[in-house]
């Protein structure tokens, strides 16, 4: 199919309509797990995987499902994939699974996923939906990782703490310690630190956007998801 602007879709996902920083979707898991970089990365990858699976499936069935039942069908699809991903993580990334715990099943309630299903995948062909899912997922993951790194660095003076949960025993020495007797700023680890950190990230993004040379009429490819 011609006429699909993959570049615009990618840019939207990564930056212009970043699900965490612009659409402000999926904040519950975002704020809860980002106390370390690795936790953020783990949840980000799991979310991206679910997003990809759900976007592709929704796009495949988009012409068969009557509009009045599309939302329950989407929820069914998403919930099934999340459970499958949860079981797979429990089986093959057990350490990380025990850390992320409850937030894996909660991916079901991440509005970013049903938001993309409804706003994009249900109206666009499979390829475009897959690209959209990857871009949105990576954008979301990037926000989780940056916020996680920020909070981990300020809160306990380390980076990559717990990398072995994800990358195996060989990653045990990946943890970087900054300052030997750094006590850490507790606030950064506690939930308020997550809100503050996210606020700063959004502010930084807005500053960068303002500094960028204004392009004539930024193209809006689709409406921003309305769920919150």
């Amino acid at each position, binding site marked *: 199919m011609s006429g699909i602007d993959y570049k615009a879709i990618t840019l939207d996902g990564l930056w212009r309509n970043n699900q965490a920083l612009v659409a402000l979707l999926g904040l519950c898991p975002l704020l809860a797990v980002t106390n370390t970089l690795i936790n953020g990365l783990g949840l980000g990858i799991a979310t991206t995987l679910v997003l990809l699976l759900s976007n592709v499936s929704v796009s495949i069935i988009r012409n068969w499902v*009557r509009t009045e*039942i599309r939302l329950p069908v989407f929820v069914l*699809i998403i919930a*099934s994939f999340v459970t499958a991903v949860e079981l797979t993580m*429990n089986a093959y990334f057990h350490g990380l699974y*025990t850390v992320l715990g409850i937030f894996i099943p909660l991916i079901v309630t991440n509005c970013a996923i049903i938001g993309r299903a409804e706003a994009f995948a249900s109206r666009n062909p499979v390829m475009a939906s897959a690209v959209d899912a990857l871009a949105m997922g990576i954008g979301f993951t990037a926000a989780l990782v940056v916020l996680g790194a920020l909070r981990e660095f300020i809160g306990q003076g380390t980076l990559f703490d717990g990398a072995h949960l994800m990358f195996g025993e060989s990653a045990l020495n990946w943890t970087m310690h900054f300052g030997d007797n750094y006590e850490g700023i507790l606030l950064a680890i506690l939930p308020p630190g997550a809100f503050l950190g996210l606020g700063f990230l959004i502010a930084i993004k807005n500053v960068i956007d303002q500094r960028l040379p204004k392009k004539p009429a930024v193209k809006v490819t689709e409406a921003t998801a309305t769920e919150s």
Partner: protein
Amino acid sequence: MPKQMIKNYAPAFISAIILAAFAILGSSLVGFSYESTHEQILQNQRETLRRQINDVFPEAQHDNIVIDDVVSIKDDELGDDEVKVYRATLKQTPTGLIYSPVTADGYSGDILLTIAINENNQVTGVRVLQHKETPGLGDKIETRRSDWIKSFDGTSLTSPRSEKWAVKRDGGYFDQFTGATITPRAVVKAVKNTLQYHQLNKEKLHTMEPDS
């Protein structure tokens, strides 16, 4: 039924059928994932448990498969919940018991512990499996934050003496943390209670029928 009515309801029926089809598809996917990961998950859980027990009880002092020799007990001294006790033996002789009590005396929520005690009523190790204590303050009970929990190694009800089984602020033997007294106090109390229970009941526990 008049024709008109059937016509009116047809879309609803079709919708219901589509929805049911997706429900079946979804459940099949979940069922399939469960079947294909079930073995691995069980094995992971056993492996985790085995490592936890090896952390607190020396491998040289048992030759049985400790995680398979388990009895469940319920006693007020060990909290409100049923406690699993893993039994270690060496050449069929009991060498120690590994308790998994839960204490609700922490600062926030339950603290899940593993406490191993040998036949001389000495603690060989204590670990925290799960807790919701304040990060940066109460979480020093984890080995990845501090070595505090290892100060129980080798202790018993006679060393330090029974009345010294408390944190320093309460006139006892064990350190508290800066800014957090409630958490270590809860752990000390739980270990002490388990020691007392162990002293009185270990023979009984060793002769109980194991859980299947």
